[in-house]
């Protein structure tokens, strides 16, 4: 069966420090991979998605970046964190079937606090 893991689960970082969140998927090949952020309140904002190795689409301008060095690995990074980067970050995967996005599955989330 397929599983998704992301880490770390909780992170407290000073302003200006770097960030690296990692996500891996097991039990499937060539998944679509996603990073979402959930700030205070309830909305989920799509940050990045990837349909293949080295293919990254950015949804919003920001000081974050994403990379996909392997088929089932997705990394969210920042060189210098801002206070506004605080939030709950969620990795997700799906397997598209033709024009259908496929069912989306989420990891456990990483809660980032920037002080």
């Amino acid at each position, binding site marked *: 069966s397929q599983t998704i893991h992301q880490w770390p689960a909780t992170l407290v970082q000073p302003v200006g420090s770097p960030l690296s969140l990692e996500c891996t998927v097991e039990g499937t090949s060539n998944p*679509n991979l996603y990073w979402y952020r959930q700030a205070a309140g*309830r909305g989920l904002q799509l940050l990045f*998605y990837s349909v293949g190795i080295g293919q990254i689409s950015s949804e919003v301008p920001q000081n974050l970046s994403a990379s996909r060095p392997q088929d089932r690995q997705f990394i969210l990074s920042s060189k210098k964190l801002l206070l506004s980067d605080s939030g709950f970050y969620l990795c997700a995967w799906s397997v598209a079937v033709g024009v259908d*996005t496929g069912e989306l*599955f989420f990891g*456990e989330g990483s809660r980032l606090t920037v002080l």
Partner: protein
Amino acid sequence: GIQVEQSPPDLILQEGANSTLRCNFSDSVNNLQWFHQNPWGQLINLFYIPSGTKQNGRLSATTVATERYSLLYISSSQTTDSGVYFCAVPETGTASKLTFGTGTRLQVTL
């Protein structure tokens, strides 16, 4: 892009009550998902329902794609049903990403 609206935004129920959550979307879609976010933040898949009706225990969902809405029914609610319920649909013109509604926050009290 596609617009997704959920109602009501907030709902308080007494344990045992029934409820209906609604998701409206602005364009035709080929699938729709319902999620429950528990108080610890975990997003749990409830239904993957492009059309028709599905049931899973006390929960059921109906999507009427031609009229661009979906309903999530919760019967005999329990305190463990508390959390935020999201619907999500594919962004128009792409098979790669979903757009989420703003959610319905449900609180079930004793």
